[in-house]
């Protein structure tokens, strides 16, 4: 039986491979093919350059599949679009409407409590926030737009990413199935999903949020998965010995102990979201990325660098808040361990 299985797999693979070659030969345009199929075995010149008939036709089906998606599921995407856009515009308008000192005060308050009343971090974040508008008054509103997009993207990542990460940690099959998808999401060039994003959602903030999700959710999923799997076996055994159900083990033991790792994932997720927001300015997403793009297109080095510094400051703010929140949680869980 074992031996039989060993032969079966390579056999299936080679059948699929030959099938693909036949498809590509059949669908190639006549002018690219030798007149007779048997010519291939008489004239071996095709071994020099890659022959045109050996070209798997993937572009056309992808195009028509995409058109079908737009026509059949237009309403579905419209719904997602309206929901995310409503969230974004209401958040943006309320923040842009607030006087800037109040926004700074809000950021300071959030930092102060998230970091567990650390004065150093709070002062640093307050300083960075002030500097955003201080660099150029134009940047203030644009930074708020960028922040809104990043925050919504992050929320989407957390809501979807953490449950998937937990599912991966608990089930090996799920993990094996999802890992290649995560690899794909992380390596496929962003323009491959930015341009279809415009076709589905139109120009603006929503394709950027979707792009953030695709680009930034993999590290969160990976770190959640890793964090839960790294929880000591003994601790879990102990909890089981005390009669905890699977659910109780998860919520009472695994997740709290994995929280520092999960927070690290959230932190990475934020940083990648910010990177993507700059790229998204190329599909008409308003925000601080605009300024960099404009500087590049006008060959204005000063303008691009100034806006680049603003993005770094924004990154520092996000990083310090999430990082210090993570540290606070870590201190708490370690204290529990000591007791």
């Amino acid at each position, binding site marked *: 039986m074992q031996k039989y299985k060993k032969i079966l797999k390579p056999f299936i693979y080679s059948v699929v491979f030959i099938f693909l070659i036949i498809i590509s030969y059949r669908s190639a345009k006549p002018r690219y093919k030798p007149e007779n199929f048997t010519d291939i075995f008489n004239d071996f010149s095709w071994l020099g350059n890659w022959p045109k008939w050996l070209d798997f036709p993937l572009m056309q089906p992808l195009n028509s599949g995409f058109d079908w998606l737009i026509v059949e599921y237009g309403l579905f995407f419209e719904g997602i679009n309206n929901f995310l856009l409503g969230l974004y515009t209401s958040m943006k308008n309320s923040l842009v409407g607030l006087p800037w000192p109040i926004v700074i005060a809000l950021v300071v308050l959030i930092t102060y409590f998230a970091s567990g009343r650390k004065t150093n971090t709070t002062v640093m974040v307050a300083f960075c926030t002030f500097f955003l508008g201080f660099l150029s008054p134009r940047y203030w509103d644009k930074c708020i737009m960028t922040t809104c997009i990043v925050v919504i993207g992050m929320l989407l990542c957390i809501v979807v990413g953490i449950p998937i990460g937990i599912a991966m940690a608990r089930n090996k099959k799920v993990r094996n199935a999802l890992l290649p998808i995560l690899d794909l999401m992380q390596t496929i060039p962003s323009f491959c999903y930015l341009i279809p994003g415009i076709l589905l959602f139109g120009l603006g903030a929503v394709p950027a949020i979707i792009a953030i999700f695709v680009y930034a959710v993999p590290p969160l999923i990976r770190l959640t998965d890793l964090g839960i799997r790294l929880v000591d076996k003994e601790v879990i055994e102990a909890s089981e010995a005390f009669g905890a159900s699977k659910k109780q083990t998860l919520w009472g033991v695994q997740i709290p102990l994995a929280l520092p790792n999960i927070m690290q994932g959230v932190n990475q997720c934020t940083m990648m979201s910010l990177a993507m927001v700059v790229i998204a300015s190329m599909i008409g997403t308003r925000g601080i990325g605009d300024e960099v*793009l404009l500087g590049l297109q006008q060959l204005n080095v000063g303008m691009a660098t100034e806006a680049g510094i603003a993005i770094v400051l924004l990154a520092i703010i996000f990083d310090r808040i999430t990082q210090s929140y993570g540290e606070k949680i870590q201190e708490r869980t370690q204290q529990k361990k000591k007791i």
Partner: protein
Amino acid sequence: MKFLRNLILSFVFAGAMSLTTSANAACKVHLGDFDWDSANIHTAIAGYIIEKGYGCEVQSTKGSTTPIMAALFDQQIDIITEVWRDNLVQLIEDNLAKGTIIELGVNTPSSTQGFYVDKPTADKYGLKSVEDMKKPEIAKLFADPEAPGKGRMTSCISGWTCYTINMVKHKVYGLDEFYTNFDPGSGGALDAAIAGGFKKGKPVFSYYWTPTGLMGKVDLVKLEEPAYDQACWDEMTKVVEDIKANGPDVYKDTCACEYVNMSLTKAASTKFANNAANKPIIDFIKNYTVPTAVVNKSLAFYMDESDGDMEETAKNFLSNNSMWEKWVPGDVAKKVKASL
């Protein structure tokens, strides 16, 4: 030790490779290319002829208008085969005066740019000119989801001069009260926004131009604007250049009119053109001209049949047209034909 030996060997190998490649080519030409498809086609055709016919090493660099033009002025790029001269008047005249570039005549004799609306919407609401657009109920059709109460016109990319021209036009025509002059960020995004609107059957209001591949696929109607007038255009150009240099706050009331039915030109850097060895290539580029209809046909081939292969499109143009044989001396034409 083994690592060191391999390292040295690989350097020697790389050196030998670069020597052999540069030894075959008698000359080197660096073409500038832009991020829209008609420019890509001209670059591909000219590049193919220079490479196969003149035996030169051709390198082409693709980018946004400003960086590529700057590289031409800086003598890093030798030739550009499609320059939207009227959009860049000031810049080009300054550099002609400075002697950094020379112009090589007209490429595509006529091309159009302007404000377009999709045909179904234009028919339904009787939209013919920009004046017809100035109604709140019309603006609602093109609603900008990020600016409540306003419509959206997808405009040029903010680095292109036409973005500023459109901004001034919006103000002069009074469109700015109803529409945002929306920067789509990149050429691909602008195309995708228009194509997406048509696929979903939504109203489209956009700046666009011909010759383009997309124009053959979608049905856009050009809106009438005040007729072109040289004095008016010059007055507007001054305001536009001022805004480009000092920001949108320096806007002054000006006159505005439609984009001129402009010719696309070719240009070369002075350093390249003054080199006597390059004279045959300069002569060829001077002769190079393709009418709009043929460009559109090539673009259609590129979109539908070439599988996105520009070289294939250039070969298709060269095999199905004979106009190019007049651009080059007989022996060059023979060499190009032999390679097809």
